[in-house]
């Protein structure tokens, strides 16, 4: 599948009707989502025929992108039932087979080493401090091959340090810097939309933890 085609399909997905600010629910735009998964597969072979988990899947954009690129089994995890409803509908619309689990990432207990790749656009920690690193630490425990994640560019050194020192990453690489256009979703948003510089990271977990 070509990048443009992937981006087009992702752009047609339904997004949050009633986003919940305390969960930092923001849609992952099709521009970022398509590039993230396309890179994961074309540069690293981390998607096609693999088992992929989308942490904090929201409306399912990243997981769906993985399924469109031929992941064999995709599981979306989110704490919010409404988002999971929308994500299910999105997957059905595109006739994709995607699983969902409702849970809190912080107390996820996952058995075995079945998941190859975790993809995520985690909360940035603007509402609940440290949320982004909570997600990253769990992702690195669960993934056996790689974790792809988005974090604000302003937090780059903090993310690198925490990943390597506290979250058992054997490597942490910024693949590229992207512009995340955040639409006016919440009442407290003053501007019509805003561009945030985000880093697309690839982390590799330490084996045999």
């Amino acid at each position: 599948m070509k990048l443009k085609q992937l981006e087009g399909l992702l752009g047609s997905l339904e997004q949050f009707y009633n986003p919940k600010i305390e969960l930092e629910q923001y849609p992952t735009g099709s521009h970022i989502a398509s590039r993230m998964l396309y890179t994961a597969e074309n540069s690293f072979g981390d998607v096609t025929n693999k088992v992929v988990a989308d942490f904090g899947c929201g409306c399912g954009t990243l997981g769906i992108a993985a399924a469109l690129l031929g992941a064999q089994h995709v599981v979306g995890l989110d704490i919010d039932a409404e988002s999971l409803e929308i994500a299910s509908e999105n997957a059905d619309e595109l006739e994709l087979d995607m699983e969902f689990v409702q849970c809190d990432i912080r107390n996820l207990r996952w058995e075995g080493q079945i998941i190859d790749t975790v993809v995520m656009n985690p909360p940035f920690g603007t509402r609940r401090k440290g949320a982004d690193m909570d997600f990253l630490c769990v992702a690195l425990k669960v993934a056996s091959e790689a974790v792809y994640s988005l974090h604000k560019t302003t937090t780059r050194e903090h993310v690198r340090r925490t990943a390597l020192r506290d979250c058992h990453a054997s490597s942490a690489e910024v693949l590229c810097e992207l512009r995340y256009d955040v639409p006016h979703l919440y009442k407290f948003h003053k501007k019509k939309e805003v561009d945030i510089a985000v880093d697309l990271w690839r982390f590799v977990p330490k084996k045999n933890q």
Partner: protein
Amino acid sequence: MRLLTHNMLSSNIKGVTNGFPLRIEVEKVVEKSVDFNPDFLKNMLAKIEYKALVEASRIMGYAELPDHAEPSMLESDDFLRKFHHALMELHLEEGTLVCPQTGRKFPVNKGVPNMLLHEDEV
């Protein structure tokens, strides 16, 4: 929820040491066809808990999987197809997952398990 996902889920209640596998209580099973991918299946056999898969598939109404799996069985197309069916094509649409240690029930609705814990379980 297909059985490959069930094979990864464990009871996450605080203090539980024996939370896997979750016991399945069936209300509705749905079968969804998935393309047969032998390479993927061979890879999976080494990674999953086979015993848990056999038990779960039987509860879901599929009794064709042999009790034990040897690596040599991966050469058999017949075994691979049964393995494929059990692992990938059987879905628990409605039912419950039960913590083997505490008996706590996690509901499954429209194929989605709800593993959210109450405050006192965290």
